[in-house]
């Protein structure tokens, strides 16, 4: 039998520093800049929200962002891992911002606090930190708050009168009066602008938002909702900022389309069944859990198997 020699490393290689790392020239993005650009793309939407709902919007968003960072630091401290490098990729901050946007402007401050802590601790760090979480942290925290504090979570003010709106009196009821929907439409248009900028910057793939909208339209046609409802609720915000989370969406192109169609379709279906404020959070969490399976379904064959 042939004797197999043990592999010997070449003696003159610098073992601590084996490979030359390529400098940053070819990259069009890295993790912190991605997170920052997504945060920047949220700004037009936030400004429009502020215009309609007042200063409470800013407070909720900053509050949730702050507590998300605090939650991240606590868990990192417990896990005995470096805190500053993990915080400096801004992923915890972004999760908090996304959650804060979903919170009603008049909600009590502790709602944002609980939400931020839940998003980073339960939604992300519990699974092992950035890149490991199966569910979108912001949406997970939003759902937990929605189920735990349903009254506080639904105290949206009427942008016109400033009076409290009933939980059930969603804008869907006003579809027949044109012009009355302008507050909701304008918010979604502002998020749409931010989202399109992200696509132009090649930070998010176009497949996910496009798939969400198409899936939504198909199911609205089937269940008989008016098509205009696509512009209401959290559609644009969700399609461009929540569904496009790289960690919780599938990896291959075909799987992305299927995932996005599912999110859009489920959102429309849930809206037609229930008068939940938004079906989007449920749809995204349900489809998140299917994402690994989609990946497996559409795994590309390497070239050598052709």
């Amino acid at each position, binding site marked *: 039998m042939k004797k197999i020699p043990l592999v010997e490393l070449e003696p003159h290689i610098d073992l601590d520093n084996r490979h030359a790392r390529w400098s940053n020239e070819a990259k069009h993005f890295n993790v912190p800049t991605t997170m920052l650009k997504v945060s920047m793309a949220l700004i037009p939407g936030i400004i429009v929200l502020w215009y309609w709902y007042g200063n409470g919007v800013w407070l909720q968003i900053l509050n949730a962002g702050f507590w998300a960072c605090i939650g991240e630091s606590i868990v990192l401290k417990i896990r005995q891992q470096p805190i500053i490098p993990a915080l400096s990729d801004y992923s915890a901050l972004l999760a908090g911002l996304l959650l804060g946007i979903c919170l009603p402007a008049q909600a009590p401050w502790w709602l944002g606090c609980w939400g931020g802590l839940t998003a980073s601790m339960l939604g992300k760090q519990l699974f092992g930190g950035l890149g490991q979480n199966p569910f979108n942290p912001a949406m997970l925290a939003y759902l937990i708050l929605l189920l735990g504090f349903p009254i506080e979570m639904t105290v949206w003010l009427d942008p016109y009168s400033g009076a409290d709106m009933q939980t059930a009196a969603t804008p869907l009821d006003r579809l027949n009066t044109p012009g009355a929907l302008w507050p909701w439409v304008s918010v979604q248009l502002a998020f749409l602008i931010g989202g399109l900028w992200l696509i132009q910057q090649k930070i998010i793939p176009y497949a996910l938002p496009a798939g969400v909208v198409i899936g939504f339209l198909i199911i609205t046609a089937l269940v008989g909702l008016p098509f205009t409802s696509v512009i209401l609720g959290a559609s644009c915000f969700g399609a461009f900022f929540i569904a496009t989370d790289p960690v919780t969406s599938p*990896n291959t192109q075909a799987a992305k389309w299927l995932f996005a169609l599912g999110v859009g379709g489920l959102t429309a279906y849930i809206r037609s069944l229930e008068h939940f404020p938004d079906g989007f959070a449920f749809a995204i969490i349900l489809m998140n859990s299917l994402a690994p399976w989609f990946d497996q379904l559409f795994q590309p064959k390497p070239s*050598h198997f052709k």
Partner: protein
Amino acid sequence: MSAVPLLKQLKPLTGGVFINSHKSVTAETAYQFIPTPPQLIYHLHNKYLQYLPKVVVGEQIQAQQVIATALTETQAVSSNLHAALSGQVIEITQQRIIIAVSSEPDLSPQNYAFDDYKPALLDHETSSHNLLEREQAALQKIRQAGIIGLGGAGFPSASKLNRHLHTLVVNGVECEPYITADAALMVAEPGNILLGVIELLKIYPQLNSIYIAIEDNKPQSIKAIQTALAQLSLKTQYAQCVHKIQLTAIKTVYPAGGERQLIEQLTGRALKIRQPASDIGIACLNIASIAAIGQALAFGRPLTHRVVTLTGNALTQPGNYYLPIGTSFGVALTAAGLNSQKLHQVINGGGLMGQAVDMNKLDSIGVEATTHCIIAATATEFAKPNERPCIQCDACVPVCPEHLLPQKLFQTNDYSLACIECRACEVVCPSYIPLVDYFTAAKQQDRTQFIKQQRAEQAKKRYDARKQRLAQIARKQAAVAVTIQQSTAIKPNQSKQPTLRQLKTQVNKSKNLLRQAQAAYLQLQKNQASTAESLQQAQHRVETSQFKVDQAEQALSKASQAK
């Protein structure tokens, strides 16, 4: 002159990245020379071969003399190492041979102009037998000239050639950043490259298409080869060769010059995993290897020098240099104007696949045949940003030329044998994850485990065999004891008498032992490093075995007389 013809079936590479090539500093200038290095250092290991020294310490050697040989399993020469310059061997270790140089360097080979042409060699009507002999002789020449893949892999070139080839790919696609050595060779010696092609056509007349592939960001090289081809086509004897040669411009993308990628682009045929190109009748050789093959076959000149790109911001005169193989990195970099204050890191290889070498050993690392680029980098030239967790952004998926899923491999701590380790995925990774390092580590781990397993199996087999042998011996002894008991009862004297045949084998065995002992003794005598004590031991062994032979022969003669 017409533009470079683009082939119709040329399909662009799927995947790959567009990166700053950093080639403008050294781009497409003819190579320069360095002053004679004081020492030459030859490493005795490379990826595929292990060389055995053929010289002893203190020996005076001539330029182009064989100093070490790599053998195949069948004890045939697979490659040689040649001294580039004459001098004296001053050190031989397991790792390397060091030669103190005493001569001036010889200049580079002249660009071959095809003036002294021998038409007999291109005769296609030679009998197939003749052709076979000629092929074997040529392959032997290539092996003895020590030609290995000069593009960086170092695979012995002769192993890529066989009689079933129909396509030859001459790889001038230097896609990795920083490297311009092949471009310099193409600009300076286009004739030598064509000479190599024509020499290969002489031994393989059945080759029906020859692609010379050059990246389209090297207009000077393309022009040089084009001019040489045009001059060659004026000579009528070469007309049938020239019409087989297709000069092809490849779209600039990394890694378009990988063997598998280039073959796929040129011929549309994808190689299976770890399948050698010669399986489908294609040989893909680096342009420098082709030039070296031409030199070896036409003039019998071994591979002793090569063009190396010395570049990086810590050099004041970066450029392409014609170096004797064995020149130490320190000497080479000093010749290129090294600014040691700015120097932070030295990289052996290109900007992506190169490996950082130990800064303290610069003077003891020699340029090998596979060294095509040395980068003397400043502290800012190669950033080493902190690694962040993978966010599964899939940026690495579209750039993988082998259509793998790097992020999935990374997640599952796996590796793929299909990975060509081009590091395109690392270039685009937003989290700065050194993915290929992880893959190679996983591969290494698997391999060590495999080797351990193999060794355990071997040991178990040996142990089982030994147990069986011992049991057999015990059984035999028991049987003998029984027969002795029985025989002593009946015939007391005859059982101990060995047969004639046994005696003969005894003689042969002892003679064999004697021969072995003598050989060992002679070897020890030749080797100057052996001590007096070991010599004495060997002598004693020879004497005792001689005594045993005599005894056995006496016993045999007695027995035969008695018969």
